[in-house]
């Protein structure tokens, strides 16, 4: 598979809604340890709202789909992941306007814009024990392996990196967000935002492989 079509993107978003619903308690549990115990519920609520918009996506370009998803996440997630994922998809929309399918390079542009938005919005750097600890290495890995145009291969690599990177947040001390209030006590826990980000990449790979 060389490209991701509009309908593949919609399938991805719907898959995410299912995954976050299934993993709701798991993610919330992660958040309960070092945050305010709402990440699972927030992600499930936000992506359920996105999935509910699927009928509107019929025949629309990917830019529209991403933008609508972004606005939906902004207004329904509730926690910090709302503006973060919202900004991510909004900037990705800017790179996919008018497109009905994404090549490996197109997806790379979307990811790059999205990650830049995360950096600008969250102001977190690598090692702060946030979702950035996943997104920064994922972007590097994707870009490195997408150069030859193989989307599935690039996503496979990105997904592997994501899992490793998420797990690597466990020993870190949080520097941003609610977890940072715990200081040293935040060490020893998996960062829920890093985990949900990893799930997001993994789901995209699942769709790309179909």
């Amino acid at each position: 598979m060389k490209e991701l079509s509009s309908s593949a993107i919609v399938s991805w978003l719907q898959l995410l809604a299912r995954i976050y619903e299934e993993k709701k308690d798991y993610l919330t549990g992660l958040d309960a340890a070092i945050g305010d115990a709402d990440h699972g519920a927030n992600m499930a609520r936000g992506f359920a709202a996105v999935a509910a918009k699927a009928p509107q996506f019929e025949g629309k370009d990917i830019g529209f789909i991403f933008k609508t998803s972004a606005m939906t996440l902004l207004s329904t997630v509730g926690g910090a992941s709302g503006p973060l994922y919202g900004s991510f998809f909004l900037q990705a929309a800017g790179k996919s306007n008018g497109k009905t399918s994404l090549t490996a390079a197109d997806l790379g542009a979307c990811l790059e814009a999205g990650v830049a938005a995360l950096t600008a919005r969250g102001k977190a750097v690598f090692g702060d024990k946030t979702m950035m600890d996943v997104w920064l290495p994922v972007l590097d890995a994707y870009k490195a392996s997408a150069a030859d145009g193989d989307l599935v291969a690039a996503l496979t690599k990105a997904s592997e990196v994501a899992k490793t990177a998420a797990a690597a947040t466990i020993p870190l001390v949080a520097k941003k967000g609610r977890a940072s209030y715990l200081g040293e006590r935040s060490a020893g826990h998996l960062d829920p935002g890093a985990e949900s980000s990893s799930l997001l990449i993994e789901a995209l790979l699942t769709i790309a492989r179909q």
Partner: protein
Amino acid sequence: MVGLVLVSHSRALAEAVQRLVRSMTGPELPLAISGGAGEDHQDLGTDAVEILEAIQSVYSVDGVLVLMDMGSAVLSAETALDFLEEAQCPHIKLTSAPFIEGAVAAGVSAKLGNALGDVTAEAVGALAQKSEHLNEESEPAAVPPTQTAPVAQGPSVRVVIPNPQGIHARPAARLAQEAGKYKADVRLRNLTAGKGPAVARSLTSLITLGARQGHEVEIIASGPQEREALDGLKKFIEAGMGDSLNEKFAEVETSKTATSAAEGPTHAMGISSGIGVGRLFFAAESSVSIPDAIAEDVAAETARLHEALQQTRKQMQADTAALSRQIGKSKAEIFVAQMLVLDDPALTERAGQLIAEEKNNAARAWWQTIQEAVTVYNNLEDELLRQRAADLKDVGLAVLRQLGCGASDRIELPEPGIVVARDLTPGQVTQLDGEKVCGVICLEGGRTSHSAILLRSRGIPAVAQAQGVLQSVDFNAAPVLAVINGESGEITLNPDKAALESVETELAAQKARAAQEKAESGQPAITKDGRRIEVFANVGSLADAEAAAANGADGIGLLRTEFLFMDRAEAPNEEEQYISLRDIVRAMGGKPVIVRTLDAGGDKNIPYLDLPKEENPFLGVRAIRLCLRRPELFQTQLRAILRAALEGDLRVMFPMIAAESELVSAKTALAQAHASLAAQNVPHRWPVPVGMMMEVPSAALVADKFAAQVEFFSIGTNDLTQYTLAVDRGNTALQDLSDTLNPAVVSLIETIAKAAHARQIPVAVCGEAAADQKVAAILLDLGVTELSMNPRSIPGAKHWIRQR
């Protein structure tokens, strides 16, 4: 006014803080909240889209300050900014100020009309008071860290604060900046108030010193540059910390008498002359509650809106008629101009569109339309047009009331005082309680607004554009007393005893002059060259007649009989009219009473007369034209008039005579009334003197012909001007053309006066020009022998006539 947006994870918290803020500011402050996530926003979380909407709902170029609780609230608020128009972004500030204290401080500051920067500074420093109260040594966390030493030590100097408003936000900010230039830890202590020490580099800390004009402050410095700091800061404070100190303030400073809170006067724009003294009260902006219901049936909802517009038009016509009796016709016609809003296709179409496309209910659609239009007006370059925004809002509210939304905007004061408002609508001005309102301060507004015209006609002292003057007033601290001068625009806040006394002396002198003029008013008004000028009253009710007698009127020059017909379901019968007229004639104790027969039509609609809707009502069946076409109506009135004439010196006057035949017919009708009374043996006076209004150019041009057939003329300058110049005097766009002293009008008045003199009949002026000293003086020179005016103007008029 700067708007506030409160963003919290918790809807309940946002709402509660909103209540706290509102309890300090009232509903006028533009304040919106966003909080909670999920359905109904009952879960904890934030919503960038809702924040965006909240910002937009309170946005103006004055700016918006956004306070957030934490975490995602900050991120969501930042995200919301991404969606705003680029031009709006510089006017929006996200602040790290403490959520609750900051919101209250910012709300109060915004309400005072402060700029966004100052509102933000207040919010950021909002913990200072609490911190001081709890004797915390360290600075509030929100303030940038300063090098703090627990005890102030080192060399010191003393200085007296020269600024009229003391160390308030702006001078404090500058002082803090200045202090930061030196390598020294600088502290200030307020010796007069016993407060401090405060860290000089902290704005909020400086404010807690409460240093006012005349207070002595000690500067203490320690560090390598302690000497330079002491010298530099002393000079900086003495020079006013960047504020300009005018001579008056300097005087107070050098005399060192002012340790009180006396603050200096400043100027706004005088818009209605007179002096007002009293406590300041903020007028809450009208609260409007609009139903959320969706328009299920678009056609029905559209029809509902149109019905409401129609009803509002009717109501406004009735109000205008009633008002014209109170404040004079041309003033009341401001409301005629307002009525045009109801017919504005741009507004009705936009509202219709909102109903059809957005499924808004009629009230919501209409109010949004009005708010959009008000925003457009407010952003216009042209000052005159901006002032029309108040008219739009006025009419908008009137329509909402018809739609059943409780939208009262009446301003009530708890006790006598001065009303402070952003601006007043004309409707609000007419509803002001003259007993309690000693003056009006508008933060915005201007001299030419309709509200200003009405304030002048009501004699309420007022100033406008006072935002700058009131900016630094701390309304929370204590009741603020002020003196306003509606002539010069001067506002003196918290006047000291001497200032207050001088104002009271001036007011007493004015009162004494008025009392003196009133006492002399019973005497005839004779010019220095020996001409006696009769000064009559225009009267539209028994109360007016009593006021006329009390103010020394030489008689009633114009008794408007329309009042007998207003506010009722059917025409009054002969007996009712007779009794009302009789009472008025009696009230004048034998002085002349000139009764004008019914002057309905034109702008004066009387519903039960079923007047046909005309394209040009002022050129249609009105006044005498109507009466001649309704013999039963006319006969009833004429009979009542002849009967009442038994009680004193009553004279009859026919309005709007344009052709000789009309006068002949009117006189014939009067003779008929006499004949029928005589046939029925009903006591009445016959004959009575008959006169006519001179208000149509066709009559004025042949005044000599009419002079032979009547016993007096009365010139209605308002209509004469309108008909001569073809200028609708209700049309505000043509106000500059509507000039009684236009050469054509003057020439007609001269013609009328000459014809009257040739026949030796009196010629009066009963239009508003009669009360305008400048115009009336010219009228007297043209040969006018009598003036008829609002009863309250009579003592002053007689006074100036005697000076001539």
